[in-house]
């Protein structure tokens, strides 16, 4: 299944946020969206996921989702969005309760998702008892439970400390490889973008337009090697040079707002 941003524009009142954004996410492909603060990255993701109606253009899907997918377009949220009154297992089960799965099947799916995210021993814990990294693992387990075709990740690591970010990044790489899922990964962290994405869509400052689409010339497996580190840092610097001036302008704009 492919996800297409087809000439998407959006405005909040008088404020133009996105202007004619078009790109495509192929099956199994990871596309990162980067750009200066306030360029509409998260707005674009909400539109792609059907949570916001664009004022122009539309988000489109091409092809059928996998037969066992319960929610082809699934979000992983920056703030985890866990129900504080539900345990870890109940949070993971939450999107399954209203599907055709019976209780036994749901239990199997939840157990599998918890096992894959290393949460089996925490199934009875409440979110307030978990660290930020563990909470995001619950968010990931919940997303995996519905077997998505495309993951929509809105800065999933930005609320976490650097060590936890590193560990979860390794998890993302492993899970994406195992499930051959496509993903749209919104981030302001260029290092995350070059490590995870197959292609990077660079947006301009507000109103966000597609400024450039950068293809990472190596597989994710190759990026772990020492030789690749230099290339990745070079790519990161290129990306930074693309958005640096606009990031400074955006920062000044925020300060004056």
């Amino acid at each position, binding site marked *: 299944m492919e996800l297409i941003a087809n000439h998407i524009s959006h405005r909040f009142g008088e404020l133009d946020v996105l202007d004619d954004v078009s790109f495509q996410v192929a099956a199994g492909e990871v596309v990162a969206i980067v750009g200066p603060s306030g360029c509409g990255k998260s707005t674009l993701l909400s539109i792609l996921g059907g*949570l916001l109606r664009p004022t122009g253009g539309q988000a489109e899907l091409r092809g059928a989702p996998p037969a066992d997918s319960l929610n082809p377009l*699934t979000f992983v949220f920056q703030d985890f969005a866990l129900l504080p009154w539900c345990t870890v297992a109940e949070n993971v089960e939450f*999107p399954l309760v*209203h599907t055709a799965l019976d209780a036994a099947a749901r239990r199997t799916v939840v157990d599998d998702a918890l096992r894959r995210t290393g949460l089996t021993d925490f199934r009875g814990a409440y979110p307030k008892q978990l660290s930020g990294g563990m909470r995001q693992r619950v968010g990931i387990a919940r997303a995996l439970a519905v077997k998505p075709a495309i993951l929509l990740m809105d800065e999933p690591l930005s609320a976490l400390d650097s060590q936890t970010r590193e560990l979860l990044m390794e998890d993302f790489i492993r899970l994406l490889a195992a499930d051959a899922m496509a993903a749209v990964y919104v981030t302001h962290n260029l290092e995350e973008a070059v490590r995870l994405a197959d292609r990077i869509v660079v947006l301009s400052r507000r109103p966000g337009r597609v400024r450039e689409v950068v293809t990472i010339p190596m597989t994710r497996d190759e990026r772990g090697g020492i030789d690749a580190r230099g290339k990745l840092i070079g790519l990161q610097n290129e990306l930074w040079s693309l958005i640096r001036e606009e990031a400074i302008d955006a920062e000044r704009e925020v300060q004056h707002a």
Partner: protein
Amino acid sequence: MLERSQASTPSPQPDGEIAPRPVKFRGAGFTPRAGRYAGWIGLVLVIGLWQLAGSAGWVNPLFLPAPSAIAVAIYKLALSGALWHHLSYSIMRIGTGWILGTIAGVIVGFAIGLSSLARGVGITFISALFPIPKIALLPLLILWLGIGEEPKIATIALGVFFSTAISVYSGVDAVPRNLIRMAQSFNVPFHAIVRRVIWPGALPSILAGFRITASVALLLVVSAEMIGAEFGIGAFVLQAGNLMQTDQLLAGVVILSLFGLAVGRLINLLETRLLHWR
């Protein structure tokens, strides 16, 4: 290669150097904690002092009977069956009025919290009618509903309704929007979002509202019974006052206080049970 070293202990002070001094602690205060027994000790002290004043004849028992006299009055009321007779009327009025007002308040509160149309209309009405002291409507309700139990129950229900509706829609408004968006992103149906996200999310505010409406109901039942009832704790307190039976009057006040405490305790239990995740 990482260069490693052991953690070092402070070196001895060289001759002629100023001696190190500890950093002054500045983080004290602003964290008040309720002592476990302080409240009870304070209460016992006040009652003891009150009893002493009564026993020593420092105060006229006609104006302020001693706690022991009040306890005797309660005992006699209980023995005669009058206590239960009056209390049962009050409990029936409070219970019926509170349940009716709460059901209506929860329904209207959820409607205001979830529907733009209901919000537009409902908030205007609630803002206009909430400030009216509901006891002022009792004579009108007597005209409409007769002189039986109905106007008293309706007064309590009205008082409970407005506070409940406000606490419910405030609670619905306070449910984090990201949780609702999360549920929508998983295609969870509307009714399930209300039941599994909005209801538990609004529950802390709803239970806080129950605490307020329990007090409102107690206040209104006493007022209504003082205005137009033969039986009930409010009527009993008024009659005792008219007959200068201050021990009986204060017995009624103590019973009201105990009733309020019992309701508060019940709501505490509900909160512990339903909001254990906080």
